[in-house]
């Protein structure tokens, strides 16, 4: 027990400061926002991550958002276990045809108002997999998308900036 506490105190806080992106910054970060979050949601956002056919690279970076450096929960952003509890669907990967119905059902199960973020090159434009007999390609081919974040995979920094900007009230 003692060495646990010792480690906790010796490491201390590693959490870093992050801010929403400036408008000019968005393009360089590869973020495109089509519709922002209503102001009333900005203090607390529930996200449901859905892998619709990713290579699992994007998932690794979603996980990283919860590590102590990014600590996404301090911004009121948390990941939930059911779409029924979610405000946002964070979709990764091309939508494989075998996941198409599952994604549609997940979308339907998410209460309104809801937002969809297509994360990564696959989800936003089809990436390396594109459209084929097995893949519907980009998420927007299946459900409406409110924001895309490019990258293969997008770094947690870009992902976090994207989320913060989405939550920010447009001045």
């Amino acid at each position: 027990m003692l060495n646990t506490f010792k480690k906790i105190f010796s490491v201390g806080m590693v959490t870093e400061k992050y801010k929403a992106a400036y408008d000019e910054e968005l393009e360089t970060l590869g973020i495109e926002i089509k519709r922002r979050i209503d102001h009333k949601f900005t203090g607390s956002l529930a996200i449901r991550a859905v892998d619709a056919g990713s290579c699992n690279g994007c998932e690794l970076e979603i996980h990283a958002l919860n590590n102590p450096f990014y600590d996404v929960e301090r911004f009121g952003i948390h990941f939930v276990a059911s779409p029924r509890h979610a405000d946002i669907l964070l979709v990764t990967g091309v939508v494989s045809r075998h996941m198409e119905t599952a994604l549609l059902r997940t979308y339907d199960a998410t209460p309104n108002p809801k937002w969809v973020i297509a994360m990564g090159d696959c989800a936003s434009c089809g990436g390396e997999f594109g459209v084929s007999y097995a893949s519907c390609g980009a998420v927007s081919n299946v459900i409406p998308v409110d924001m895309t974040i490019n990258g293969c995979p997008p770094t947690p920094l870009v992902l976090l900036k994207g989320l913060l900007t989405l939550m920010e009230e447009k001045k």
Partner: protein
Amino acid sequence: MSWQKTFLSQLDEAGIFVKSEHVSPVVEMWQIDDKHWQHFAKLAAEHKMRWAAGWAEQVEGLFYVHACFEKSGDYVLLRTTINVSKPELPSQATVYAAANRSERHTHDMLGIEFMNHPDPRCWTRHKAWNKHDYPLRHNFSVQGSPAKITPPDTGYHFIQSHGVGVYEIPVGPVHAGIIEPGHFRFQAVGELILNLEERLGYVHKGTEKIAEGRTPESLAKLAGRVSGDTCVSHTWAACIAMEQAAGVEISKRAALIRGIFAERERIANHLGDIGAICNDVAFTFAFMQMMRLKELWCRTNYELFGHRFLMDKIVVGGVVVDVTEAAGKFIFTEIEQLRVELADLIPAIDLNSSLEDRLYTAGYLSPETAAHFGTLGFVGRASGQDFDVRRDAPYAPYDSVQVKVAFEDQGDIASRFWVRYKEINASMKLIEQFVEQLATLPEGDLVADWQTPKAESYGLGIVDGWRGEIVSYVRFGENNTIARFYPRDPSQLNWEALEKAVLNNIVPDFPVCNKSFNCSYSGCDL
């Protein structure tokens, strides 16, 4: 290769005629008649050969069917040809359980009927294409003819159980956590798992089909996305296969850098998963600390090499980024720091009795079951399967160092935990040795010149990724294009072992059992 001689004479006695061809220092291709396909498997099993991979491809009016076997680090790539008009072959799954899902995949993709197969249900195919269409046949276009909305696959017959108090729990494809999609069907009584059946294929993205016609550069990129967490090793395996086919030799420097990347990938994943295992039994301290270490490790990847997971840093002919002297120095200090951190953390984790309670004896995979399913990597090594491609069939740069293979035989979650910890230590040592060797070579010299391979030439890349042995097959067509790509991720074999490891565990322990295997869905569904 003495066992091969004895085995060949045994085959000869059995009337199985073998035409052999040298593929690489560790791989021989043996061509046999289709009617001997199953008999060969029987003899191979008696000879204690491990079934490693299986796939097929269409070459004009023929199907080439392959099965890859291994013994003592020597590989045999078995091939037979059958007519497209009569695509039948006796099943090897009757002899090797490991071949079961692979043959079902081959059936769904090419329509080859494996006779007497113990499980005739489809595997990779859900509803994206029709029963009598086969995506990998030449007459099937990449675009196929999908329905407007692909319906869910509801007709799969799961094993049922009956009796007082027995109930069924369907889980997925969309899971509660941030993980890949797949379906699990539990039969349980009270909290106890009586049976688990996996139904995968949800993330089938047509990887094999969309590989056709690509250039070598573009195939390397696709290979890096077979399973994102293994981007380095999958690209490496595919590149070895392509370089073999083209007769391209990479520089010593490039090989060392590939080795450094692959070991960095192993460490990153092991750090993350050790943390995640602790998280699944609610030991947040260890989870956060390990995630912190993994993040630091990925940041170094980004700063030194330009990508947090080193995606696309391996290319055909070599690598695109050098490990400079300065980078080498940085890596050394970083490893020193990681050792200090782990020296604090691992004892703190080890002394935690609640963790001990949850990890020891849970998720037990016996050495017999592990061998039965050809279980690979740290899962296999934690259940008595003492095999590592880096040591037993070494490829550059591992042929220049001594690879110490972590090994345990208790087969529980704790064993897998400790194997992974030991592998982190071994990988750190390997990286140090590779960096030291780099210092003796001139900087630069990263990518060898490419030569267009002859049409029909093929190669088999076999490397040890962080999950275990990866087998990657590439055959070229005309004009430097890919005719066939088949990557066999270790998950394909380890998934089946997971079904057995969870038996008699309680349902709430499934997440931690699953995490301790951490199989890839994407790498399995392709």
